[in-house]
């Protein structure tokens, strides 16, 4: 039983009563266990960063600043290794994915909240969740065997007609095989995985757009697009930025689909259409089995994993702050 023990402390005039809550043992155990669960989750995350740092510390210490400036990765051959090439290439793939995914996700989220017939709205929303649950292995296989043979034509067209832009410039771009396994194709496949993540966040924020202001816009004679443009989109801007950042975090860490598509390449470059690219997660996945027996190579990969961990954590922290702030604005509605 919870007993509220409230008695006057002294006869010193009007003082507030001191409320003391005495809990019975079962309750104390329950609260302790639940708090323990929370603390366990908290420490687990600390452990992840801690163990990665512990394992890779001597490698980072030995390599020093060269780990950030070296482009090649010859750890298994006892050569130099660093993330100066794979980190920018990781970002290139993620940015291509975001550039494709965000417009699609925005339109899809607006469709789900404003345009879809009410009856199919629920079905479509769970369809988005299903898209998020499709294994990345499946996306990778589909991208490699189905999407890539079709996409190389688009790559070639972009290179032929817009080749003067450095992003689309490909040297010796006459054969279609010069356009396979590129940053662009990996980015398109990753964008398929990012769309459901972005859509979910944006849909939640768009759905909170104040009804009163929407009706106000309608009363002033706005069309549906007018309502979306003047009320829903400005209101959901925080959610859009947050969803984009969250998708960016997901795209940076994507492993298997990228591993399937790419062919390893260790030189950061502007051209996204040319054959050959890399990412940190693919580097770990592709080199792990041959590095297990070599402690330096193995711990080098762990250091690369630590770099990825830090980058995604930073991106996601920014994202969740922005989303949380945009939600807190929701309480000011009429």
């Amino acid at each position: 039983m919870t007993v509220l023990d409230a008695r006057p402390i002294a006869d010193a005039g009007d003082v507030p009563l001191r409320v003391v809550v005495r809990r019975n043992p079962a309750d104390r155990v329950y609260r302790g266990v639940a708090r323990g669960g929370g603390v366990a989750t908290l420490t687990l995350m600390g452990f992840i960063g801690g163990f990665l740092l512990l394992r890779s510390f001597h490698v980072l210490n030995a390599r020093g600043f060269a780990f950030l400036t070296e482009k090649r990765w010859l750890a298994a051959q006892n050569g130099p290794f660093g993330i100066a090439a794979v980190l920018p290439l990781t970002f290139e793939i993620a940015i291509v994915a975001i550039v494709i995914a965000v417009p699609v996700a925005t339109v899809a989220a607006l469709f789900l909240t404003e345009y879809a017939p009410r009856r199919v709205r629920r079905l479509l929303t769970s369809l988005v969740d299903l898209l998020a649950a499709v294994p990345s292995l499946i996306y990778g296989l589909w991208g490699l065997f189905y999407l890539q043979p079709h996409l190389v034509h688009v790559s070639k067209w972009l290179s032929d007609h817009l080749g003067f832009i450095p992003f689309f410039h490909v040297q010796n771009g006459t054969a279609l095989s010069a356009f396979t396994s590129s940053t662009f194709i990996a980015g398109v496949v990753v964008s398929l995985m990012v769309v459901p993540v972005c859509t979910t966040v944006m849909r939640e924020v768009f759905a909170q757009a104040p009804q009163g202001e929407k009706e106000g816009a309608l009363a002033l004679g706005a069309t549906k697009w007018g309502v979306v443009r003047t009320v829903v989109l400005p209101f959901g801007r925080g959610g859009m930025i947050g969803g984009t950042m969250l998708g960016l975090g997901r795209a940076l860490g994507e492993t298997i689909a990228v591993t399937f598509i790419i062919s390893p390449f260790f030189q950061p470059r502007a051209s996204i259409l040319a054959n050959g690219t890399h990412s940190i997660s693919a580097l770990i996945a592709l080199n792990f089995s041959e590095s297990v027996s070599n402690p330096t190579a193995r711990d080098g990969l762990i250091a690369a994993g630590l770099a990825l961990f830090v980058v995604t954590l930073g991106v996601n922290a920014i994202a969740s702050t922005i989303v949380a702030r945009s939600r807190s604005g929701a309480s000011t509605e009429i």
Partner: protein
Amino acid sequence: MTTTAGEIDLRGDEPLYTPPEERIPFRSVDPADAWPLIGAGLSSLCLTWLIYERLTPLTGTIGFGIAWYATFLLIAWFVARANHDKLRARDQVVRIVMWSGGLALIVPLVAILGYIVLKGYHALHASFFTKDERFVGSLDKGTSGGARHAIIGTLEQVGIAMCISVPLGITTALYLNEIGGRLARPVRTIVDAMSALPSIVAGLFIYTSFVVVINHGQQNGLAGGLALAVMMLPTVTRTSEIVLRLVPGGLREAGLALGATDWRTTRNVVLPTARTGLVTAVILGLARVIGETAPLLLTIGGSRFVNWNVFKGQQSSLVLFVYNIFHTQTTAEQWKRGWTGALVLILLVLVLFVTARVIGGRGPAHIGRIKRWRLARKGLA
């Protein structure tokens, strides 16, 4: 001077004739606009075909699709502009774009499912579930051998992950929602951050902590299960927390008002009310980890025969089975087994997902058939 009815004011700035005000339609589909749209679609198809296939040297299906869509929007704009004013025409074109956004969600899903089914059903025989890869060479037929070892591995590892992350996840969600305190905010932030943890980093973490430190470098099924648990925990926690938040506060207060302790209220009021939602949370977490490949790549080692023991010896898993086939084999005949593995995998995800939705679709405190029978036996219903 005032104008009276029937008289036209010639001094004002307003035009002499204003058109009657049009009602702006808000239906999601306007039947009157359907025919012009179909016409726009057909004419843009013909125009694109003419330009794309006959007049310019362009190739590729995707390029054709993009060109068609752009032409379609353009023609739809002109048609709408011919019939309505600028605002309404813009509204109509935007509406088309929004609907294609909806299509953009359905098309990839259908395309992927269809492709995997088409590729995978060839080698889908009973032997796929009863044999392992022990005697399979790279020259054997695609239908020889099976994935029994992989399916056993997946079930065991996912089982371990579930045993760890479900209690921990629901406890954390209870802490966040029922108890709270100073730590609640950092825990929530951390859970959010963890849900976006790259899966390969989760694998690396278990490798550096469990495999290297405790297991002396031996990879086994338990390590895989732990890595999956790290991936599953944030999904279960976040979904459970949302579900617990939906339990009406009045119910909780009623329990407390009857003199129940916090624990009795949680056990007898909150958890039963949220039961279906919690089941959904668990199944969504399962659907997420059953397709995780990257952590298993680093932790379970891979094996070509059945190994029931999660504590000793390397194991396989369905995702690793598929990954290895496409990564090491070079012939389409060998890939057949991989496609079948992918098909089984996606079917598992689909079944889990639909189950989660069916259970989650019920309202809180839904009384199912089994529970009704139990209550009836006690004479309560």
